[in-house]
């Protein structure tokens, strides 16, 4: 049983990556370059040195957060397509708190305060579609998409009207609450953007796993996602869970905003969230909505993203963007097919087990 489940989790991404590799070869050839050389360059620019690894880890940090955000809502049967806005809002919340706090505040207080604000603001943005879904049955897919536009426009207005440094699209530097770079502790990562937010992201993954699979609330949340009416029958207050899961999901996405704002730049900048929200869907999909799978998938997509830059001088960066989309499409396509096959196999095994037992029961 566990084996089929693991197969179900692993098979689609593997198939997808095979397909993506072939597609990638074709695209590279179309540009008159040699696939081998380009792939080598991609690997060298990502996992080939500590800096590249650091960059991959940096990008994976944000993607882990948005991936977890999508997965958590997904486990409750909801599609949070609004991670983009929640991520931006979270980063903005962290920045505002960081700006308001006195510079003298020790990091042990300032950092958690900023983290909490990020999660709170992201969570608040996530709670809106959650509440509308719980109260009115409004499609969270549509509401989150629409809310992305609204939130981004709102943040843009606040920053451009109230908060920006002259001639720029960013807030002033944040005095308190900055998260140290990983390079401060491990010199080899010098220069790369990776920072201790990654620890929070991994911790978030662990907590999410524990929460989903080891707590009563997680049990109820997953039940709502699988069969809301059964959950209701089981004493679960379904609207409350819908709201809760969207708020938690938004909070996780909001946490991702810290990576850029407090960990990397030290200020909020318009447009920093670009793309990371939607990539979170890909991460959750390839990670099969499982926190550990998401950690792995985040690394994969971070590698593709960073790799796109590494090969940029030779082929357009859009190469890896196309591959990313191809991976999503093929995983999304493979999942139901693999599920169907495995489910059929499992059903026949169970049926034969039942029959065996029945036969035994009859003979004794």
């Amino acid at each position, binding site marked *: 049983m566990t084996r089929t489940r693991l197969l179900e989790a692993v098979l689609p991404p593997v198939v997808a990556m095979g397909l993506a590799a072939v597609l990638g070869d074709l695209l590279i050839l179309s540009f008159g370059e040699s696939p081998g050389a380009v792939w080598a360059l991609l690997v060298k620019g990502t996992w080939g040195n500590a800096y590249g690894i650091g960059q991959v880890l940096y990008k994976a940090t944000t993607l882990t957060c948005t991936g977890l955000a999508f997965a958590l809502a997904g486990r409750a049967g909801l599609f949070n*397509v609004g991670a983009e806005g929640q991520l931006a809002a979270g980063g903005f919340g962290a920045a505002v708190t960081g700006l308001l706090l006195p510079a003298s505040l020790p990091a042990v207080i300032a950092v958690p305060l900023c983290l909490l604000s990020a999660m709170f603001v992201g969570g608040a943005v996530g709670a809106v579609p959650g509440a509308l879904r719980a109260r009115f049955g409004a*499609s969270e897919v549509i509401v989150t998409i*629409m809310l992305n536009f609204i939130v981004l*426009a709102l943040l843009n207005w606040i920053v451009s009207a109230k908060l920006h440094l002259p001639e720029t699209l960013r807030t002033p530097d944040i005095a308190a609450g900055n998260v140290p770079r990983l390079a401060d502790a491990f010199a080899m990562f010098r220069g790369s953007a990776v920072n201790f937010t990654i620890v929070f992201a991994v911790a978030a993954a662990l907590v999410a796993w524990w929460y989903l699979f080891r707590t009563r609330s997680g049990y109820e949340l997953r039940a709502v996602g699988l069969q809301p009416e059964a959950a209701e029958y089981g004493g679960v207050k379904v609207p409350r869970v819908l709201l809760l899961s969207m708020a938690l999901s938004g909070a996780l996405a909001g946490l991702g905003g810290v990576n850029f704002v407090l960990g990397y730049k030290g200020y909020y900048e318009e447009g920093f969230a670009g793309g990371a929200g*939607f990539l979170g869907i890909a991460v959750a999909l390839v990670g099969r909505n499982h926190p550990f799978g998401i950690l792995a998938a985040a690394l994969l997509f971070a590698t593709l993203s960073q790799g796109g830059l590494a090969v940029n001088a030779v082929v357009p960066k859009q190469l890896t*963007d196309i591959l990313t989309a191809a991976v999503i499409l093929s995983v999304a*396509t493979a999942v*139901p097919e693999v599920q169907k096959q495995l489910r059929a196999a499992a059903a026949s095994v169970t049926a034969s087990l039942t029959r065996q037992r029945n036969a035994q029961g009859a003979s004794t």
Partner: protein
Amino acid sequence: MMLLAFILQAIRIAVPYLLAAAGGVMSERVGVIALGLEGLMLSGAFGAALGSYYGNSPWAGLLGALVAGTLITSLLAIATIRFRANQVVVGVAINLLVAASTRYFLRLVFDSSSNSPRVPGFGGEGVSNVMLSSFMNPVVWIGLAALPALGWLLYRTPFGLRARAVGEKPEAAATLGVAVNPMRLKGLYLAGALASLGGAYLALDQHQFTDGMTAGRGFIALAAVIFGRWEPVRVAVACLLFAGAETLQIQLQGAQLVPSQFVEMIPYVLTIIALAGVVGRSVAPAALGKSE
């Protein structure tokens, strides 16, 4: 005169919305979530530029748009209909795919990361009656006719009855010999064609493809579909309403009564309000998003 100018401009702005929203209605009425409208439009725009460039005629551009839209629709259809992939995920992926690949092929074909060269399009130079000149563009007429025609198709023809049945209760349609997947496929291809024409309008009106030139119009069209409750005529009104708000902003020129950010929010806010049932319950086709 001002009023006329206003109306004409609103109509021009509405054309891509009308076309894409018609595609959205068609797609959702047969049960496929129309999250990929933005991608379909953009592919149509790129196809139009390519077609017009090589065929040296805007009509070849229209053909190019249809080919590109059909190509992307095929991907969408294979994933969602044949393999029953999740429609939300596929929609998002299609948008990413088109955004990335149009730019990739822009580099490959035109050696530019943002613009195609100028291609033949509709609309002449130095036209005497400027206000009416854009109405010499056939796509404008297609756009204006699209939703009413779709309404006729959905409510007056056997195809429409079957399409609605498939989107509401596919099993029921299947038992009466209405083949569900082929129906969905037809609906999707029609939707793809309509949406890609919306993109083609942009490219041919500009005589050029610009990277990301749809600029979120697919999502506004989707908003219109929902705000219009999947009823073609209501959806058309929603498109005109959204276009009207945009026109108002353009016409009020600099007279910044309200920050432009807030004007941009209008379609999205209205849609959320509609979904919350404040302006009447918005009920989607029952089988929307379900692939079995």
